[in-house]
């Protein structure tokens, strides 16, 4: 069964149609990249998938593991195995990263019928995953994303992703605002999470990220529709030719 199936999806923001008939299927183990110019609908797609109420799905279907997610709130989608790494992670002063993560991990575990992690088991898991994304211990003691640099925020997203062990990982322009070193660390973290039963949807404006996270499929999103699909070479093509020819059409 496909991990994610999007069928003829239409979505609006403030009554303005943004996604206009999008189809996409992601099978377990696959990494799909969606590339597109500004305004193509990239962020709308990730928000509609995650269930953000500010984005309205007007028609079509989104199936996660064969289940229609229409009636599922964002936290239910997360508990069902969907994870969205934000383009702009939200700062939450006053809640420590550790407390936040423990609440998240245990919420997802509870929904999946697993035992709650106690403090010791949780710390073991943190130690384990910390190495994977090379995140500094002091960031975990601080308030969620508060005063983090752009790179630290993105690393924190990947860290959360590794802790929650989702089936479907959506990365919304994770490369934006990253320098080469941070990009490499974030990509290494993502690559370490690649597995036969996990799927990725990597949304990006630039080809650069795909040098590090090599996709199985590349799709070009223009004006709310996928206008071309191919393998990783399509990304290189876009890099040299740009989006101009698509946008002009």
């Amino acid at each position, binding site marked *: 069964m496909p991990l994610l199936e999007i069928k003829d999806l239409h979505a609006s923001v403030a009554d303005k149609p943004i996604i206009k008939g999008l189809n996409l299927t992601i099978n377990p183990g696959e990494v799909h990249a969606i590339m597109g110019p500004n305004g193509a609908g990239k962020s709308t797609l990730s928000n509609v998938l995650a269930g953000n109420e500010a984005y309205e799905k007007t028609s079509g279907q989104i199936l996660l593991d064969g289940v229609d997610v229409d009636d599922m709130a964002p936290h239910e989608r997360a508990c069902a195995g969907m994870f*969205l790494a934000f383009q702009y992670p939200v700062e939450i*002063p*006053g*809640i420590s990263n550790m407390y936040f993560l423990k609440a*998240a991990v245990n*919420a*997802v575990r509870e929904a999946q019928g697993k035992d709650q992690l106690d403090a010791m088991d949780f710390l073991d898991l943190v130690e384990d995953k910390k190495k994977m994304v090379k995140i500094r211990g002091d960031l975990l003691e601080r308030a969620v994303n508060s005063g983090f640099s752009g790179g630290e925020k993105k690393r924190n997203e990947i860290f959360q992703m590794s802790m*929650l062990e989702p089936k479907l990982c959506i990365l919304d322009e994770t490369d934006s605002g990253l320098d080469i070193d941070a990009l490499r660390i974030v990509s290494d973290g993502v690559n370490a999470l690649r597995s036969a039963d996990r799927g990725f949807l990597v949304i990006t404006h630039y080809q650069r990220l795909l040098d590090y996270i090599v996709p199985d499929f590349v799709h070009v999103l223009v004006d709310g529709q996928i206008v071309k699909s191919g393998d990783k070479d399509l990304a290189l093509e876009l890099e040299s030719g740009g989006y101009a020819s698509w946008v002009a059409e």
Partner: protein
Amino acid sequence: MDLVKLREKAAADFKEVGFPTSKEELWRFIDVSRVANAEFSNEWKPSDLEFQSLDKITVVFENGKLSREKSNFDELPAGVCIGSILDLVDPRIGTLADAKNAFVSSNTAYFSDGYFVDIAEGVKLESAIHVVYLADVDGAAFHLRNFISAGADAEVSVIEEYIGKSGTQYWTNAVTEAFTADRAWVDHYKIQRESEAAFHFQTLESHLGAASVFSNHAVTFGAALGRNDIRGKMTGEEGEAICNGLYLLKDNQIFDTHMFMDHAVPKCNSHELYKGILDDTSRGIFCGRILVQKDAQETDAIQNNGNLLLSRAAKVHTMPQLEIYADDVKCTHGATVGELDEEALYYLQTRGINPKKGHAMLVFAFANEVMDEVKCKTVKTYIEELVYAWLENAHV
């Protein structure tokens, strides 16, 4: 003036001025007639209430009287003096808290006990001093007078915790004077957990010497009607005052915070962060006045008051006031009354956290920001637990 005369004068002042009415600007939003019209007795009994020691040194007052038995301050390092205010001879008593109003005057006239802490020059006291006031006599009035003196370069942490028995009606009327000498560091906390039927009023007055730090965290949970008057005065350059606070109100509680920071000399910093969470039909009042006097150049003062209303019937009056007579200063103030950040709630949800839990986490986070500068880890954890417990029963 010697203490006897001072007290006689205060008694006369109290008779003369009486309790304030809401016609007076400083008492505009709080009606204290309930206190003025109540009858208070002098009945005394030991207290059945329990408390949790937060550090090695504890000073315990049972219904307004020091309990040597429950306290623990017998073995103190050299240069540290702690005891009953009744045993203190210091001409500075009453020199800071000299306001002619019902609460300060009656306190000066009638105080029955209280603590004093005297830290000699250069002495850094490692243990915090945990002062506990237990109150469980119906109809009692407790006039508590406290005195803190930190000599030059001294360091001390004092936690005042007021604990009352639920359902008991009494009046706590406390005054604390704090002298922070040059380069000294006074870290003061107030945890107010009075009975929900009690009246609680406190005036805290502090003078800050050059390059000294006075920090105050006031957390309010209890009392039907209450007020904190927190007043600081910079008397030497490069002093720093931190006055943060949190008020968590429900039912019909009314709580008023009046802050006054007097920048009388140059190059001092003061920052104040106050947060309120108000449920049911409770009412909060915050009035923060920062005065920057003519010579107080290079003053850096920040004041912020944020409020979260959990019920439509809850109300808050917030009045930040800047009064600046110097020209080279950096002063900002702000006040908000609002709801929770939807974007943050969405973020938590995408991590699997349901909206109810996410809501509670954000309310906690809102409150917890006030605790960022709490240096004492035990105190921080203790306050966090109290806040959690409060939120469990609130409409979040």
